[in-house]
């Protein structure tokens, strides 16, 4: 390769490295905002705003009081400036009250925003057969397919509506898997959660479509505190998709969601996430802090499968977990976590085996590029009554360049000697020879990297629903642009 050629290549690399978050735009929908800061009054105001019953307000206040006794966890392998919780706006909702019959009535600006994201609701409706409960900032704006679902007795609605219309279910299950005392961010979420999704699948019903929700942060300085509760009654099945992108922002934004899944006897829940919050710019400025608590409970013969593709956020702290309480229950965790530039991710899962013959599988693929840090942290715990529990864990890391880090922290606690727990881990690098081989077949370096990375993540991608897998591959390509030079 001669000098001219080299400098051309350098330029391509520079151009790519300079590329910014493609979906960083702010839409101009008017927002109704709360004062900044947090106290009991703010919580009462949130609750009142959402016309919540007294028991809900009380629950929030109890959570708030408990939260005041807690301190932020420091054990994850991530570094970020102290968050000032009195500097956050805890509620923001679009001002124009959205109660529409059809999309035509929806603020065109909002529809345009969804189109920019490549997820036009109309297409979703007609093509994908996906019921979309779109959370735009904090209030649900469009809910579709609800009728089809209600024919089967399926409830799929914003959690704020469920609190009003299905209080018995919410009272019974909200906080049952992730109690408000669970951890710092789960407590905060319980106190101030803005909205989120609620799904209930009745006994023996197989949900006829993928349920999905798109989240989007769009209000300056407004923390997002989503709360999701999914209950699969005995013998039912549901596949739920969660995806999000966020507009470019200079300040850090806090996102602390809680997701609770309940799979009763013989039920199955598949929960898939493609996460692409704004990761900050190339210098590590800005970006979302994503501190999430996701946990599911499996009763007898039940199965919960978490699949996640994490490409975004400046800092991620997230461990979707399964409590395998019932005998013969199954937990799965398939994860791709990509970090580039100055992103930090500390993510993994917990598989808690309590029932007999419980099985769990963990497949984690971490890709680190730039100056990022990517950690897998996982716990496999086998209780003393969990006879014949089995776990298989595989944690693979791929490094791009030599300024990034990959770390694995597997914790294994086995209290029953019939258990079989296997853990495999590998670390690899994309080799220049692989790239050259693909180049020599006419494939550009950029495409070659994407190809190799997609190959590395294949086991996880094939667990995603089709349309999500395509989106995930696109996101990966965008996230890793310019990371090999």
């Amino acid at each position, binding site marked *: *390769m*001669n000098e*001219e*050629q080299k400098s*051309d*290549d350098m330029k391509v690399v520079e151009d790519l490295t300079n590329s910014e978050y493609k979906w960083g735009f702010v839409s101009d929908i008017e927002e109704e905002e709360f004062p900044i800061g947090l106290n009991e009054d703010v919580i009462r105001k949130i609750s009142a705003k959402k016309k919540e019953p007294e028991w809900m307000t009380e629950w929030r206040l109890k959570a708030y009081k408990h939260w005041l006794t807690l301190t932020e966890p420091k054990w994850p392998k991530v570094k970020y400036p102290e968050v000032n919780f009195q500097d956050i706006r805890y509620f923001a909702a679009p001002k124009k009250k959205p109660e529409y019959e059809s999309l035509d009535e929806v603020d065109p600006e909002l529809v345009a925003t969804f189109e920019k994201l490549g997820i036009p609701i109309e297409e979703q409706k007609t093509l994908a057969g996906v019921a979309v409960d779109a959370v735009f900032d904090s209030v649900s704006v469009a809910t579709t397919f609800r009728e089809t679902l209600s024919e089967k007795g399926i409830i799929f609605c914003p959690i704020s509506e469920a609190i009003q219309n299905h209080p018995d279910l919410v009272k019974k299950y909200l906080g049952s898997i992730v109690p408000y005392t669970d951890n710092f961010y789960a407590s905060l979420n319980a106190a101030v959660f803005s909205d989120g999704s609620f799904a209930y699948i009745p006994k023996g019903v197989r949900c006829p479509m993928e349920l999905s929700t798109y989240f989007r942060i769009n209000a300056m300085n407004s923390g997002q505190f989503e709360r999701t509760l999914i209950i699969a009654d005995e013998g039912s099945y549901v596949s739920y998709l969660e995806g999000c992108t966020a507009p470019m922002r200079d300040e850090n934004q806090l996102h602390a969601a809680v997701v609770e899944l309940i799979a009763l006897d013989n039920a199955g829940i598949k929960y898939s996430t493609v996460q692409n919050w704004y990761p900050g710019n190339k210098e590590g400025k800005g970006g979302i802090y994503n501190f999430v608590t996701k946990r599911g409970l499996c009763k007898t013969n039940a199965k919960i499968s978490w699949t996640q593709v994490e490409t975004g956020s400046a800092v991620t702290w997230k461990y979707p977990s399964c409590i395998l309480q019932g005998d013969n229950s199954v937990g799965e965790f398939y994860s791709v976590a990509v970090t580039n530039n100055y992103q930090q991710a500390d993510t993994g899962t917990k598989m808690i085996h309590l029932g007999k013959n419980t099985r769990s599988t963990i497949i984690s693929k971490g890709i680190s590029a730039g100056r990022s840090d990517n950690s897998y942290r996982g716990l496999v715990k086998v209780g003393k009554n969990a006879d014949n529990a089995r776990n298989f864990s595989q944690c693979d890391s791929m490094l791009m360049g030599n300024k990034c880090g990959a770390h694995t922290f597997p914790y294994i606690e086995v209290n029953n000697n019939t258990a079989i727990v296997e853990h495999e881990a590998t670390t690899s690098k994309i*080799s*220049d*020879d*692989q790239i*050259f*081989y*693909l*180049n*020599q*077949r*006419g*494939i*550009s*370096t950029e*495409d070659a990297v994407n*190809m*190799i990375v*997609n*190959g*590395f*993540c*294949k*086991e996880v991608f094939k667990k995603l629903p089709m349309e999500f897998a395509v989106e995930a591959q696109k996101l990966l390509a965008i996230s890793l642009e310019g990371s090999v030079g």
Partner: protein
Amino acid sequence: MIKIRNLHANVEGKEILRGINLDVNAGEVHAIMGPNGSGKSTLANVLAGHEAYEVTEGEVIFEGKNLLDLAPEDRAREGLFLAFQYPIEIPGISNTSFLQTALNEIRKYKGLPEYSAKEFLDLIKAKAVVLNMNPSLLSRPVNQGFSGGEKKRNEILQMLILNPKLAVLDETDSGLDIDALKIVSKGVNVFRSNKNAVILVTHYQRLLDYIVPDFVHVLYRGKIVKSGTKDLALELEEKGYEWLTKAELPVENV
């Protein structure tokens, strides 16, 4: 097809090619032979544009274009193909989808319509038959878990699919048993036409029994020290390289 003029190249600062001159025309097969370390593989890699090899002097004109100005992927798109001595494994990507991507990249570059998955599948199956390839190799990840012989056959399959103007085969015969050698040679002979050309890099005359070259060149210490016809290869087999290298040394002033 290709004109190589006074080509010098370094690897890690050490000069390996020291002034190669070679003309290859359409319809010709040239064999490049020579002892270990003479620069045969370096020449193949320099032509393909491997960045570990630094060209310090000289010129390569490929189909009227200055080859050395092109990025490796553009050299491939222009019709230069390298069958690797050690084909690389790429986990997770099926052989078929990899080759379909490659072919379509090349077709896009030429302004041709891309192949659909169905069209491509028909093409690859037809070519695999020529090489007696087990169809399961097509859906397996690229070269992963392939035997040495299967990897080499896979290189020839790629050549047949991508249908380049110039194919450079870097010791494609090494590590092949006689049956595999015959199949690989058959693939190359099927490929040969008056529109393309082949440069065969090899240690052994044996390959040339099956792929009959128009010219044979002996590379020694980074230079072509002797050129001839197929008979030269036979002579080498008989006498080894020593007579040539000794005779040439003073002349070449190495």
